[in-house]
């Protein structure tokens, strides 16, 4: 595996400007064919502003026949930029010909002229956040810790996150970026193929008993379920916070006996107990209050029939 990691690192561009994201990095002009997207349930990163892009190889499309496990064409690239007042970091994922994903992060120079490949072990204290905490650029093993803990390597680009039926209560929801593609547009442009007909007729959404529950489950999906899911390495822990569109169980049953611990871990930034264990030094107070209220007032209310998804246009 060591040789494997070294070989993956060896092929990484040394500068962000060499990765294909920009046509002109000086003017931040995005390259043709690089498409912005905005997931409806963003990951909490201490309040960082984010931009995200995907580039599919020319003429290739995503196979969405299994709506919970999209298959990306070889050569697919993703970028995600993190800003605290200025761009601090841009992460990149690429699907290699042998089926593995490579992970890289680029640290922006203070003058914003370009970003350099961060060391394999990451870069601690790469920037300071407005709250006075530090922002650490994760190491490549840290990338793998979250992105390789379940069946999907891509976490924020899927049928649920890109659904046109966006959750109005989603925490820290971002206004879709200009030109951002949603699920319906991706299908219409032939970039997502094979999506089951039912999700074309009715945009995907989390099954929940109340609007607040929907948003709470969406938050846990985005922030916890990369590791705490029903199909990954940590499934034996019993906390399954993934909301699968097909044949998925409800996260509620696994959450009920662990609700107290979940709140404690969410609220902690003691590095030995905090959750998520990396990528944040600042507890998400707004989300914690929201989740607490939902747990207190709704989670323990016993079994009720899930609210049926509303019919929406695709």
């Amino acid at each position, binding site marked *: 595996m*060591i040789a494997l990691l070294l070989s993956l690192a060896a092929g990484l561009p040394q500068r962000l400007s060499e990765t294909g994201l920009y046509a002109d990095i000086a003017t931040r002009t995005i390259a043709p064919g690089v498409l912005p997207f905005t997931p409806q349930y963003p990951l909490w990163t201490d309040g960082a502003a984010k931009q995200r892009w995907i580039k599919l190889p020319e003429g290739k499309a995503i196979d969405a026949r299994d709506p919970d496990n999209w298959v990306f064409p070889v050569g697919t690239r993703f970028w995600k930029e993190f800003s605290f007042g200025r761009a601090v970091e841009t992460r990149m994922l690429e699907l290699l010909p042998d089926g593995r994903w490579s992970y890289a992060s680029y640290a922006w120079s203070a003058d914003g002229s370009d970003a350099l490949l961060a060391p394999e072990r990451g870069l601690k204290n790469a920037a300071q956040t407005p709250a006075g905490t530090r922002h650490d650029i994760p190491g490549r*093993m840290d990338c793998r*810790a979250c992105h*390789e803990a379940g069946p999907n390597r891509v976490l924020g680009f899927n049928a649920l996150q890109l659904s046109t039926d966006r959750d109005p209560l989603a925490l820290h929801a971002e206004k879709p970026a200009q030109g951002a593609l949603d699920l319906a547009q991706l299908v219409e442009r032939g970039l997502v193929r094979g999506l089951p007909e039912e999700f074309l007729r009715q945009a995907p959404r989390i099954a929940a008993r109340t609007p607040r529950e929907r948003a709470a489950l969406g938050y846990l999906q985005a922030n916890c379920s990369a590791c705490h899911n029903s199909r990954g390495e*940590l499934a*034996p822990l019993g906390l399954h916070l993934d909301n699968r569109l097909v044949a998925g169980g409800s996260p509620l049953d696994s959450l009920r006996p662990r609700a107290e611990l979940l709140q404690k871990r969410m609220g902690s*930034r003691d590095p030995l107990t*905090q959750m998520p264990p990396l990528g944040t030094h600042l507890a998400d107070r707004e989300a914690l209050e929201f989740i607490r209220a939902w747990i207190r007032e709704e989670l323990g209310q016993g079994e009720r029939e899930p609210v049926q998804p509303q019919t929406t246009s695709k």
Partner: protein
Amino acid sequence: MNKLHIALFAAIPVVALALLQTSQAANSGDEARIARGSYIVNSFGCADCHTPKKFGPNGPELDNTRAFSGHPADFVMPPPPVMPEGPWNLAVAGTLTAWSGPWGVSFPANLTPDPETGLGKWTEETFISTIRSGRHMGRGREILPPMPIEQIRNMTDEDLRAIFAYLHSLPAVKNKVPDPIAPAAAR
């Protein structure tokens, strides 16, 4: 009994023998792997921290009746001493199963295959990703000193598989090692 049945019956011992040989080969492979794991673990000094101690006729020695079961749950440690400023900034229990330093307080883990308190539910993949990432279960908090993770992460996958096979061959010992304690400044 037709010819087909006769042929099938005749084939049974052959198939059985082949399966037996395959099984023996697998067992032999397992044994070789466990032996390799034993060699690494027991020459690398893992027991120094991960095995409780007892007093024998010659002083403290490894308590191999509970080998690799980590810091004993019933050995409750008092709060660590406050160390003065300067280079003497570590404190360690005489058993080597409790350590205090700038990272907080850490207790060597139960490495036996007990399903609730040890590695019984871990897969080989979880073990390898833990060592490679330096994170608990490959995903969680960082593995703390004095675990020499920086050295062990350089081992080959094959050696890590051998270590895991050896640890899983040990008698399971039920012992819930205390959780680590963060330094006061981080709490």
